[in-house]
């Protein structure tokens, strides 16, 4: 379960002055649900997710994940969260197996458990062929599979995906979406951030549209369709953020 209450993040930059990257964002995501965070580049999605992942501290507001406060109990939060973003790369000089094992160890798993998890994840993500290859020799799709495996190695109850299909081809992206659906079916809480409308339509149970750091609209796909009188997600998004179609 994720509960965000008025999350706000202000950055102070010498050149650009005060920047309100996230401005009072609130939402709730329940177990067995995929919450889609939709927004253009620079809307504040990644900053919001970084606050949830305890990488950044909110300037105001707070968030509770799995019953733990993200500021006061950040280590407990990180134990139950898996965070995957374009900015979370894997170690090029380690093999896929070593990388997953390393993150398993840092998440407190013992070696037999890690071995079992590596096998399960490699089965599910079809990774056996490149499990012992160094990550710098892998294709983008293979690297993304390794990243997913390291995100899920400790079986987190909450998973945060920030634009996970960036750079993937159609087949790899489809396979990833399928994997996320399956993970949802296990009762996990999932946040999926993207600016690809079709992915939101296919995957998300609840959609939140953020723009200029603020949550402008929230609801299920059908609720948003009724509210904005459009069937196409892209048209709904444009109407919400006030752009021209």
């Amino acid at each position, binding site marked *: 379960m994720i509960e965000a209450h008025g999350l706000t993040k202000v950055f102070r930059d010498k050149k650009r002055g005060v920047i309100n990257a996230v401005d009072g964002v609130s939402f709730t995501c329940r177990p067995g649900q995929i919450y889609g965070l939709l927004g253009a580049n620079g809307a504040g999605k990644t900053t919001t997710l970084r606050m949830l992942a305890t990488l950044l501290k909110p300037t105001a507001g707070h968030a509770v994940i799995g019953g733990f406060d993200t500021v006061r109990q950040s280590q407990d939060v990180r134990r139950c*969260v898996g965070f995957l973003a374009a*900015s979370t790369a*894997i170690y090029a000089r380690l093999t896929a197996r070593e990388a997953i094992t*390393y993150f398993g160890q*840092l998440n407190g798993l013992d070696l037999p458990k890690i071995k079992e998890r590596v096998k399960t994840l490699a089965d599910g993500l079809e990774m056996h062929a490149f499990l012992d290859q160094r990550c710098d020799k892998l294709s983008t799709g293979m690297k993304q599979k390794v990243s997913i495996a390291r995100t899920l190695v400790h079986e987190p109850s909450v998973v945060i995906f920030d634009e996970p299909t960036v750079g993937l081809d159609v087949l790899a992206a489809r396979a990833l979406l399928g994997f996320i659906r399956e993970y949802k079916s296990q009762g996990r809480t999932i946040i999926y951030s993207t600016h690809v409308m079709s992915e939101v339509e296919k995957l998300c149970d609840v959609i939140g549209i953020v723009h200029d750091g603020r949550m402008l609209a929230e609801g299920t796909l059908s609720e948003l369709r009724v509210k904005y009188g459009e069937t196409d997600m892209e048209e709904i998004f444009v109407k919400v953020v006030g752009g021209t179609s």
Partner: protein
Amino acid sequence: MNWTNVATVYAKELKDMLRDRRAVLSMIVVPMLLMPVLIFSMARIGAKVASKAREEVPVVMIIDGADAPAVIEGLKASKKFQVVPTTDNWKEQISDKKIRAAVRVPSGFEQALHTETPANVAIYNYQGEIKSELAANELDHFFRDLRDKTITARLAQRSLPATLIKPFDILRENVAAPEKVGGNMLGGFLPYIIILFSLTGAMYPAMDLTAGEKERGTMETLLCTPAARTEIVLGKFFMVLTGSVAAIVLSLVSLGISGALLASSVSGAMGGGGRGMAGLLPTIAPLGLLGVLVLILPVAVSLSAIVFTLALFAKSYKEAQTYVTPLIILVIMPTAIGMMPGIELNARMALTPILGLSLVCKEMLSGVWHWHYIGIVWVSYCVYAVLALTLAVRMFKREDVIFRT
């Protein structure tokens, strides 16, 4: 503090570093190879230049001396130099290295020798140029020899003993123990090498594990794990320290092996008669070397922590290089001052960063143990190390440092 996490981070960083060619180069290959290459190439070049200079029969000119035919004949007959006809531009010829030296035999020189009136012989050369110096030395020997013969003849004429002008001999003998002599010679050089390698060994891992990780995007991945920031910092820091200590130890081992090989090759070249050559190479007090290594540990810790903190602040590897590289100059300057003769250790010097360390090391290698100065240096570096490491942990917890864009 979960030390298992510290060990996990350290083990991963060590594995990662050993697979990185640049890291292996800076931590292992350079310290191992630099010393033998430097020592052997310098010894080889030095020996070659010296032997070539000695093999050459220097070309010299004689200025004036037309009324001193016996002296001129003596000079021309000498096999130590080759006399060529005098030209007006003899000074230019010395400067252009066409001739090596010239000697002015004053007018009426032989007459002056007979009449026992004073006369001055002047030798001209290119100061600092080895071949010219050798030529000037040969001319000097020739005229000293002539002077000694003249004195002996004059004393004999007057039936006076030779001891009249040489009433006693002066002998000079070294009474300092070989390790003291060696410590004095190597004492300045060894700390210089140790401090320099301590810094250079730490530099690459520090930059790669901080700014490099930020640039590659793996830092954020690591920070998502439940490992505490302090545990991550310590794991990484121990890797930086490993780089520093590895560079020191490998450079010292390499220096020792190179020195031993050089001694045996010199001995061999002298056909076994060079037994004494090994003795000519400076020896140092083994306990002094151990003391230097103990003292250098907090230095390696503080230098590693300083480099680590500076590199952590950078957002890219290139930026980290800009911050870290000037440290080399900051470290080399005081160490070089410590190498100068005549600089002596006192409380103020002991407290001066790097310089104090350099001077204390120099004394320990000579077998001199000033415990209060050693204490000052050791404690001050422990304080620097703790401060630098605390700063590194604080920096690592600051999101404006970790997510600097």
